[in-house]
């Protein structure tokens, strides 16, 4: 009895320690980033090892400078534009595509279905040089729309894959019921499949948004004009500039990270909940 108690306490202690350790490991860089971004420059210079933040001396100067002197206001808009268009196009195309490979019979269906992931197996680094050459020759390289096109090639396979497995799990009788109730095929997709797939769609949208928002390689290679820079491209520009100022880079990093974090918190509920409860006999 006594021994069991001791074992139990030890186990709880070990669990708590493990959790705290990894939590600290993950959260510390974020903490450091946020704290540094609020400090005036001279404080960072004088006390570089000071982990605390003097609440009386919070300074938004770094954000002001990053947003307006270094053009990050524009970068945010560019990133938002690219990411949102990528999300909308990815969802539209992958809903239609995933529905087709799960529910419709056509020649080459299996090839399509299995080929989806094969596309994703090409690493971006392999594609970036040929694509750079192609779009340079076409004279279209330095453009946000070309960037969107390239991002679609990365987001579509995964979105298709995710939606396909979700659509397969939806009972086909629901669609039959929709058809006999007088829906067209598009009506079934719009009124039954899409509302019931909200969790999967939210996941796919979030994933796509993250890819497009964080993408660096193609943005770095393709974009030349500073007015067209996306956020990740802008951060690199900033950190490689000669008069490197630490809190500016930190403020820029916060601007890159936070929208994703907020999106996650907002969508989290939708990701978990299933929606088909009650459709079937139960």
């Amino acid at each position, binding site marked *: 009895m006594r021994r069991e108690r001791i074992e139990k306490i030890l186990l709880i202690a070990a669990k708590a320690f493990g959790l705290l350790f990894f939590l600290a490991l993950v959260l510390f860089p974020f903490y450091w980033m946020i704290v540094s971004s609020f400090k005036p420059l001279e404080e960072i210079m004088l006390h570089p090892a000071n982990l605390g933040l003097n609440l009386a001396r919070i300074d938004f100067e770094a954000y002001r400078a990053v947003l307006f002197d270094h053009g990050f206001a524009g970068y945010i808009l560019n990133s938002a534009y690219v990411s949102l268009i990528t999300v909308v196009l990815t969802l539209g195309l992958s809903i239609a595509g995933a529905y087709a490979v799960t529910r419709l019979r056509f020649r080459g269906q299996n090839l399509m279905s299995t080929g989806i992931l094969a596309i994703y197996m090409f690493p971006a680094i392999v594609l970036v040089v040929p694509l750079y050459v192609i779009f340079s020759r076409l004279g279209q390289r330095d453009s946000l729309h070309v960037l969107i096109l390239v991002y679609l090639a990365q987001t579509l396979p995964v979105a298709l894959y995710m939606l396909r497995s979700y659509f397969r799990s939806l009972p086909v009788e629901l669609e039959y019921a929709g058809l006999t109730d*007088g829906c067209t095929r598009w009506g079934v997709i719009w009124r039954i499949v899409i509302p019931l797939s909200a969790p999967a769609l939210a996941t796919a949208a979030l994933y796509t948004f993250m890819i497009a928002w964080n993408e660096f390689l193609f943005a770095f290679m393709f974009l030349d004009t500073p007015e067209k820079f996306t956020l990740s491209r802008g951060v690199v520009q900033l950190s490689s500039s000669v008069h490197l100022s630490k809190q500016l880079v930190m403020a820029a990093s916060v601007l890159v990270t936070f929208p994703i974090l907020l999106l996650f918190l907002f969508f989290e509920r939708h990701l978990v909940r299933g929606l088909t409860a*009650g459709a079937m006999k139960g």
Partner: protein
Amino acid sequence: MAALTVQSISKRFGQVHALRGVNLKVADGEFCVLLGPSGCGKSTLLSIVAGLVAPDEGSVLFDGRPVDHLSPRERDVAMVFQSYALYPHMTVAENMGFGLRMRRVPKAEILRSVHGAARLLGIETLLNRKPRDLSGGQRQRVAMGRAIVRRPNLFLLDEPLSNLDARLRASVRLELKRIHQQLQGTVVYVTHDQVEALTLGDRVVVMGEGRIHQVDTPESIYGRPQSTFVARFIGSPEMNIFRGMIVHQDMQSWFRGPGFVVSLGQRSFQAGEAELGVRPEDIRTGGPQAPLTSNVQLISHVGSEKIVHALLGDDPITFCVPKDSQLKPDERVHLEMPPEQLHLFRKGIRMD
């Protein structure tokens, strides 16, 4: 409401023949039950009639007009699925009104139809609930309601009662019959439950292995099965069937089974190989003058009567005795099979 004709429909799924040349006519306003074991193709036939599945061959007609090229929407049938398939993201009222909304019926009229159907089914208080908050029986009613708010050409019901418990099933069965009398619709009803089929159907279609074996009134399906397949499938406990010979002797016909002989009385049949069928409830126990003797093996009680499993000659035989019978295992019982209650088949087909 429309009359339904199904002409030589065939359907294969890979190597499996789901349907092999099925022909069927259902009159306007008729309640027609498709009865058969699991996997006999009855649900596939229903899906083909609804236009959800395309047949490989054959044709479906409503009121004599082919509808093969029409989508489910244009065929305008209402279907109740075994799994109910209620839209989980809609309330009961929205579920029931969905078909009308898709057909651009004015809102006020949808409301009136939904409330009318809800009153008929006794689910008026549930209209604002979501399917996940309903019990199995309530979901079944909503699924029925979704079908009857419309005035479709046909009602197609695919085992709608199979998920209900026995008591609920019996009451919903009566209700279905009442609703059908009220609405006068053409109904095609699929089930594997013979009690359901015999109580509900104006006509019963017995299917097996993708074929129709018999189309008849419930009385004839039970009383004059046209094949050993139907004979075995209908009735509980199952009909006894013995292999043997029909012989002529002493100016009358006899059936000679393995270790016993039965008189066929005044009925005359062609001599030769045959199968004899007799229902357990048609066999009488008698005194020593009764012509057949059997050895009791096992007795099971089913409440209203006792079912006796015995050996007649070398073959097992099942028959019923009253619930107060004192019969015990290993006893010898004398049996009598009234000639007019015997069913004779040759190569699986009824002889008379």
